[in-house]
Each structure stands twice: as structure tokens, then as C-alpha cells.
């Protein structure tokens, strides 16, 4: 086994605000690092979607002799409904029913490598690939059938696994494709079905996975039960960097049901024949464990000032016109956001098996291929001997503990070869060790000219890393605790046009003079990574709150003010649609109530969302009642309209919870948000009274990613509505609390 010492390949030297990185001798890791989506290299740039990196048709679609059709994707089901949507796309073009397809996603042995399922890229990248691959396979099926039936392809009808000639002779898909090698590169152009013929795409097909989840069917990695499986639990240190001095391993090993205690340096875990015994032993080990040292966390009360004082890489992402020309009226504002927790309802879980020299890991990671490489490095095994199979977990909303617990499972499985090992983190472990959404600061100074148009826009933001996914094995928490500890490779900024902390920092509005800087903080004490919409949450809140204040200064209606600064007609359409559906023109301000409006196009590239809402603040208690939310959405060609509405509703509620209530609790000696009582999120009592989502139909237009598109606009609308309800501009998240009392 290769001895992997402290990873010498990654050393970063900070000089003031510059970052100099010495790259390792492993170029494939370097490429993955630069590539924030974990994507393999482009092989044919003329192909649509993920076909660029995986151009072979049979990587996506296989047809057996007996006609069974298997469709593969590198993008996985995170609970967003994409599994069903991708099946709809493939089934549509293949003229099959969704139930006639075997769909496999996220398996390093079986599926394309599409990097991470993240960034709302699934439908644009995988959906587009499948749309074209399936269409091209249909064309080939028709060609094959035409040859075998001795007729023109144009005369044939194709439906549900059968291709029929006008005279009634038919042939199955399996026979039709015989002799045609699907192992060929896709063509740049496809013969897609006419839009008017769609019976699946654009229709609210019921999700394929929901009935199982509602009737106790096995659906999650947490439900996986393999023969001879053992249950394991891990013991994490009280704080990052603490060293394990001692633990009463002997007593723990004698507890009922215990098979083995695994100790490697400061890494401690226990395996048992049943789950409750593992938990009991874990508690005993935790009680007896003695730790030393470990880092100190920053003072929470001054966290934003501390962050702004850290060494930063200053990236100017927009420099337009002249920010220093005189302005008629200006406003200045500073916004802050606390660290947030993903808070997956089901703590992360993985199952691993080392058998015959191969390690198989069932995991809910967002990226089976990058994880596989990291685990291979961790274990000192070649990539080909490690297989990662995506199996659903609970919603992750970005990088949660999934990759870390996969590493735990692999390490423990290595110690118990031949038996599957199931590890699940406890609630406090998931909470304390997941990579948080970074705390951020934004500062803005904006100006109007005499005609009431925005003339100047100076914007800066500070943020730590939004991407700590493996990457190298050092990104995995368990690797930090081994006697031969690994360190994570340096954190890198995610560059525009997608961005990380600076995602959606560029307003879509037309502004003649603008200067926008992303102060990327490569080293922050708390571990952070991507959470749904990344910087867009606070950036869109900051932009939209400022738009509101500017519209007030210009004595203009907030909706009309936004329209006057946009040239993108689709942006204007969603804004008008939301305003109209809400009845914005007829709104009537009442005591303690406020209206808010906000707009954003996710990454300025993906779905357009506009939101109007009304809320009420109870001055005696500070309670916020969200009365009515109306959202209008344009995501291009819609695959599953109900799926889109579900995601937007979910994004609206989740963003409301983040924006109004959430903040990570910590102190110098550790993360204090160990459970839901120390990290409260929205419950039924605080959920809005009414949410409406209006979808704009854009048949035939490219798919635009939509799953994260509501986070920013909802935050902006809330900030604006609270401003009107209380008469005070609130800029420090979370917005609800004693400051709403009056």
C-alpha cells in the first residue's frame, strides 16, 4: 500500500492579498481543482451538453438484444426530481414510457462522468445530452428497422419498443438495432421530435420515486441492507485539530455486540453487529476519550470584521465606465450573512465493502467520480479498484457530510474486509463537521443621475470558499485525523461567469459605471463549501434591497424601476408576470405589514425568477407572518412543470428560513449548533400562508437550470417587505429576531 504522507503537493503561500500556489506533480488533480464542477475534459466541443465530455452514444443509452433499454446519466437524484425529468427526456425521444426504461445514475463503473450534480446543471447538461443522444438513437433505430423491414424510415411508426411499417409488419428495438454499433460519437445535430408531439416533456409526470418513499420501500442509502453487514459509528474530536491522547478501547471492545474498535492516530470508530450497540459503544468511547489541543474558533460577535481582515485575493469581476464621475444622489449600505448549515434531515450515511481487492462504496455524494479518486488516494488504491455507486440520501443542498462519511465507511471497511460496513453520522456530528455556507459581507455604494436612473454601482464582497469537495483526499474530514494525516489542497475561487461567493454579484441591470470586486478569502477557520445558490443568496438580497432604496430615492415604483433598467425581455416578462399575478398595482399598505419585490436570473445565465410577497410583523413579539408569495419563473423548455413548481416552492420556503431565522452558533471552543434546538429552522407555524408559482412557457428554448433560482429573489423580497413593514432597513441576516420588535 502506498504510503501517503502529509500531502506535499499542495502548499499555498500567502503574500498580502496575492495567492501563489505551487502545484503538485499530479496534473489530473490540478485540473479537477480548477474545474469547480469536477468535470472531465472536453473531448468534442461541438456536441451539446455533457456529450462534449462523453461523446459516445452507448455511454448514455444501451439496447439489449431483447429490447431492454438502459439509460445512464452522471447526474444523480438529490431529491429535486431530476431522475424523473431525465427519464422523461430520454423516454420522449425514444418513444418509450418512463417505466419501460431502466435508469442508472452516478455509478463509476456504469455511467458517464458528469462531475458533480450541482449548480443547477443537471437538466442543461445531462438533460441536453440525453435529449440529443436519445434522438440520435431513435434515428438509428429507425434506420435499422427500415433496412430490416425493407422500407423507408420515413414510413415507420415507432412506439413503446416496437417499430411498425405501414403494412403492419413490426420489429422490436433489440432486433432493429442489431448490427448497428452504438459505440460511436454523437453528431452535433439531432433530429428531435417536433415540440407539438411531446407527451412527456413539458408534462407533470408523477415522480417515479415518490410512491416507494411513501410506502416504506427501500429508497435511501440509509435503507441499504446487505448480507453480513456490520453497523459502525465514528467518534469525532471536540474541535478540529484536537489530538486523541487516549480512549478506553478495551472496555468498548468488550461491550455487547462490538466487533472491533478502529483507531488510527486521532481517528476513532467502532463496528458492531447491530446499530444500537454501535451507538452505545460510541457513547462510551466518547465519554472515555481524552483530547488535547485543537484550533480556536473566532469570536462570533465580531466574525464579519475578522473575515474582512483576513488575507484576500482581490478579483475584480467588473470594471466599466468611470466609477468616480460625479453622482446626483448616492446611497451606501453594508450587508452581512452568518454561517449557515445545510442541515440535511437525515445525517449522512454510507456503506462500503472491501472484497477481492476492490472497494465498493454506496454513497449519496454529489460526485461519484471525484469522490472515487479521492477515496482511491486515501486508501492508496488505484482508481479502477474503487467503485462509487450513488444511492440517495436526504436532501443535501450542496456539500454536506456525504463525502466524509463515505471516507469513514471505506476506512472502517478496510479494517473489516469481506463485510459490508454501514456508517451513519449522529446529528451532532453532521452539524459540527459539515462544511457550512460561508459567512459573507457585501458593501455597496450606488448613485442615481438626475433622471432617476442608476449611474454608478460600486460593490464589494468578502467570502471564504464555496467549494471544498474532493478534490484531493485531504478534503475529507477523516483524512485529517489519521496518524498520517492529509491536508486539503488550497481553496480556489470559482471564476465567473458562474462564480462562487461572487455568484450573481453582477447585476443584470444596465448601469453605465460599475466596479465590482470579489475578495476571496482562501483560508478561513470554519470549514465552508457550496450551499444552494452559493453567493447568489446574499448578492441578490444586497442588489435587490439596494434597487428598492434607489427606487425610493427616484420616487419610482419598485417594479417599474427595475423594468426601466433591464433590456433582457425575458427578465422583463417574469417581472411583469409576478407583479400582475400578485396584483402589485393594487397593493394597499396596512399597519405592521409590508410588500416586497425582487428579481434575479440565476448566475445571469440560468432561470429567471421574480417574486412579490406580503408579510406582517407582530411588533410585540417580532414574529413574522408571511401572508402571500407569488413567484414567476422562466426556465426555458420545461421538462416537468410540477417538478419546477415543487423546487421553487421549496426554494422559497428554505430561503425564508435561512434569511429570517438561521445562524450557526459557535464559540471559541467549538461549534455549538449540535442539534435542531441550537440551530432552529422554519417549522409549520412559520410557513407562509399562501405560495403561488407561475411558470412562463418557453417551448423549444434551451433548458435553464432552476433548482437554486428562488433563493436570492426570496431573500431580496423579504428584506424589502420587512423594510416597509417596520420602517427600518435590515441588512444583517438573519433578519427576524428582537430587532423586529417595536
Amino acid at each position, binding site marked *: 500500500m502506498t504510503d501517503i504522507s502529509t500531502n506535499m503537493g499542495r502548499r499555498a503561500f500567502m503574500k498580502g492579498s496575492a495567492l501563489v500556489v505551487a502545484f503538485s506533480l499530479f496534473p489530473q488533480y490540478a485540473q479537477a481543482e480548477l474545474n469547480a464542477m469536477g468535470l472531465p475534459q472536453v473531448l468534442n466541443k461541438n456536441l451539446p451538453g455533457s456529450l462534449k465530455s462523453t461523446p459516445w452514444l452507448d455511454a448514455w443509452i444501451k439496447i439489449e438484444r431483447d429490447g431492454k433499454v438502459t439509460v445512464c446519466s452522471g447526474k444523480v437524484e438529490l431529491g429535486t426530481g431530476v431522475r424523473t425529468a431525465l427519464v422523461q427526456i430520454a423516454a420522449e425521444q425514444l418513444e418509450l414510457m418512463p417505466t419501460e426504461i431502466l435508469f442508472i445514475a452516478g455509478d463509476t463503473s456504469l455511467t458517464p462522468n458528469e462531475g458533480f450534480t450541482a449548480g443547477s446543471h443537471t437538466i442543461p447538461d445531462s438533460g441536453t445530452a440525453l435529449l440529443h443522444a436519445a434522438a440520435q438513437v431513435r434515428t438509428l433505430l429507425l434506420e435499422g428497422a427500415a433496412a430490416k423491414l425493407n422500407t423507408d424510415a420515413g414510413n415507420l411508426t415507432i412506439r413503446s419498443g416496437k417499430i411498425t411499417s405501414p403494412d403492419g409488419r413490426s420489429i422490436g428495438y433489440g432486433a432493429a438495432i442489431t448490427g448497428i454499433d452504438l459505440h460511436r460519437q454523437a453528431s452535433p445535430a439531432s433530429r428531435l421530435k417536433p415540440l407539438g408531439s411531446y407527451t412527456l416533456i413539458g408534462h407533470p409526470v408523477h415522480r417515479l420515486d*415518490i*410512491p416507494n*418513499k411513501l*410506502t*416504506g420501500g427501500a429508497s*435511501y442509502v440509509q435503507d441499504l441492507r446487505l448480507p453480513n453487514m456490520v453497523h459502525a459509528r465514528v467518534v469525532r474530536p471536540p474541535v478540529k485539530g484536537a489530538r486523541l491522547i487516549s480512549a478506553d478501547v478495551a472496555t468498548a471492545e468488550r461491550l455487547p455486540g462490538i466487533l472491533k474498535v478502529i483507531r488510527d492516530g486521532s481517528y476513532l470508530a467502532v463496528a458492531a453487529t447491530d446499530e444500537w450497540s454501535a451507538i452505545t459503544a460510541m457513547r462510551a468511547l466518547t465519554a472515555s476519550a481524552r483530547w488535547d489541543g485543537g484550533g480556536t474558533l473566532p469570536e462570533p460577535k465580531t466574525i464579519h470584521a475578522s473575515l474582512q481582515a483576513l488575507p484576500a485575493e482581490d478579483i475584480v469581476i467588473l470594471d466599466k465606465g468611470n466609477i468616480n464621475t460625479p453622482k446626483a444622489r448616492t446611497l451606501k449600505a453594508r450587508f452581512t450573512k452568518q454561517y449557515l448549515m445545510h442541515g440535511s*434531515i437525515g445525517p449522512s450515511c454510507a456503506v462500503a465493502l472491501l472484497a477481492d481487492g476492490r472497494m465498493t462504496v454506496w454513497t449519496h455524494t454529489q460526485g461519484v467520480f471525484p469522490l472515487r479518486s479521492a477515496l482511491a488516494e486515501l486508501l492508496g488504491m488505484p482508481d479502477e479498484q474503487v467503485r462509487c455507486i450513488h444511492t440517495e440520501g436526504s436532501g443535501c443542498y450542496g456539500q454536506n457530510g456525504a463525502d466524509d462519511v463515505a471516507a469513514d465507511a471505506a476506512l472502517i471497511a478496510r479494517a473489516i474486509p469481506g463485510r459490508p460496513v454501514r456508517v451513519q453520522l449522529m446529528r451532532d456530528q453532521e452539524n459540527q463537521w459539515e462544511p457550512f455556507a460561508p459567512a459573507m459581507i457585501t458593501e455597496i455604494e450606488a448613485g442615481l443621475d438626475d433622471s432617476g436612473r442608476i449611474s454608478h454601482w460600486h460593490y464589494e464582497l468578502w467570502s471564504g470558499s464555496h467549494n471544498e469537495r474532493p478534490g484531493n483526499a485531504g478534503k475529507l474530514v477523516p483524512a485529517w485525523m489519521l496518524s498520517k494525516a492529509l491536508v486539503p489542497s488550497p481553496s480556489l475561487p470559482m471564476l465567473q461567469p458562474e462564480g462562487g461567493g461572487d455568484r450573481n454579484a453582477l447585476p443584470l441591470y444596465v448601469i453605465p459605471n460599475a466596479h465590482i470586486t470579489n475578495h476571496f478569502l482562501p483560508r478561513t477557520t470554519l470549514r465552508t463549501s457550496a450551499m444552494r445558490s452559493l453567493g447568489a443568496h446574499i448578492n441578490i438580497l444586497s442588489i435587490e434591497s439596494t434597487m428598492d432604496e434607489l427606487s425610493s430615492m427616484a420616487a419610482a415604483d419598485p417594479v417599474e424601476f427595475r423594468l426601466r433598467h433591464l433590456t433582457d425581455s425575458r427578465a422583463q416578462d417574469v417581472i411583469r408576470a409576478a407583479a400582475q399575478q400578485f396584483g402589485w398595482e393594487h397593493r394597499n399598505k396596512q399597519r405592521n405589514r409590508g410588500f416586497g419585490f425582487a428579481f434575479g436570473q440565476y448566475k445571469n445565465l440560468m432561470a429567471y425568477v421574480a417574486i412579490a410577497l406580503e408579510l406582517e410583523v407582530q411588533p410585540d413579539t417580532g414574529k413574522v407572518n408571511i401572508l402571500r408569495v407569488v413567484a414567476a419563473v422562466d426556465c426555458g423548455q420545461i421538462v416537468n412543470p*410540477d417538478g419546477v413548481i*415543487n423546487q421553487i416552492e421549496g426554494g422559497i420556503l428554505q430561503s425564508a428560513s435561512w434569511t429570517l431565522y438561521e445562524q450557526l452558533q459557535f464559540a471559541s471552543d467549538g461549534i455549538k449548533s449540535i442539534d435542531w434546538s441550537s440551530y432552529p429552522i*422554519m417549522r409549520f407555524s412559520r410557513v407562509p400562508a399562501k405560495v403561488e408559482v407561475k411558470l412562463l412557457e418557453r417551448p423549444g428554448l434551451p433548458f435553464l437550470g432552476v433548482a437554486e433560482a428562488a433563493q436570492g429573489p426570496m431573500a431580496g423580497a423579504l428584506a424589502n417587505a420587512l423594510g416597509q413593514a417596520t420602517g427600518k432597513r435590515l441588512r444583517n441576516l438573519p433578519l427576524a429576531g428582537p430587532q423586529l420588535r417595536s
Partner: protein
Amino acid sequence: MTTKINLNGIAKTTDSAPSSPLLYVLRDELKLNGAKFGCGLGQCGACTVLLDDKPVFSCLTPLAAVADRRVRTIEGLGSADAPGPLQAAFIKHQAAQCGYCIAGMVMRAQALLEKLAHPTEEQIREHMEPNLCRCGTHMRILAAIHEVAASGVLHAKKGLK
């Protein structure tokens, strides 16, 4: 030592330690998937089952406490082919995103609808408060519960066990 419990109307024997929480007995020994581990602290409701018609956190219910009280899990409400009223309503409203919380939601709602014929929106929200959904599916969950409440079918069934 073996313990007998009444699970979904059927007598089951378990070998788990009496000090095990019911959740692990259901999942690990009896191989049921519905009740889930979310926190083990009674704070999220992913493990909700019914004990003598009352919703309880199975993660905090000792096996030793169950005795001859009736345990009901989502598996006892219906199957994918023959879903119970709440399961059917949740499917109709597509009231799930990741779906991890959903079995717990259904069990808690089942208890309410068996007890109250026409709960108000406020009563439903208050009753469901112990259960968390991180994906934000609440609007659909409420809509599904309202639909079954309006039909009154669960309240009518009460007492016919």
C-alpha cells in the same frame, strides 16, 4: 431475551435489547424503512410512528416500554399498489422532494385525522409542528392533509380496528 410487540396488527417477536429505542428494532431487526433516523433526540419527527393511535418519536421509545400497545408504521397504512388515504393524497399532491421526512409526516397527520373530524388550518399546523422538512415541502403536505381531512374518511374509520 425476546420481546413481543403488536406491529401493524400482527404479533412480532424481537431479539433486540429491551433498552433499544423502537426505531432500531423497526429498521434493523424488522427491516422496515418508513421510520427514519433524523436526530435521535425527538426534535425532527422523521422517526414518527403511532403508539396506541398517538404519534410518538420511535427514536426515544424504549422497546421495553411498548408492551402490548399497538405500534403502527407507514407500512401498515397501505402499499404502493393500495395506498391509504393519506399516502394517496401525498402522491396526488406530489408532496415530497427528497422524501426523507415524509413517512413521519404521514404518521403524525394520520393521528390527527383519526382524532379530529375537521381540523382547521391552525390546528393542522400546530399538530404538525414537531416534524421538520428541510426541503420546504410544507405547502403540499398541508394541502394533502386538508384534502383527506375534508373527506372525513380517516375519522369515520376510527374505532373500527
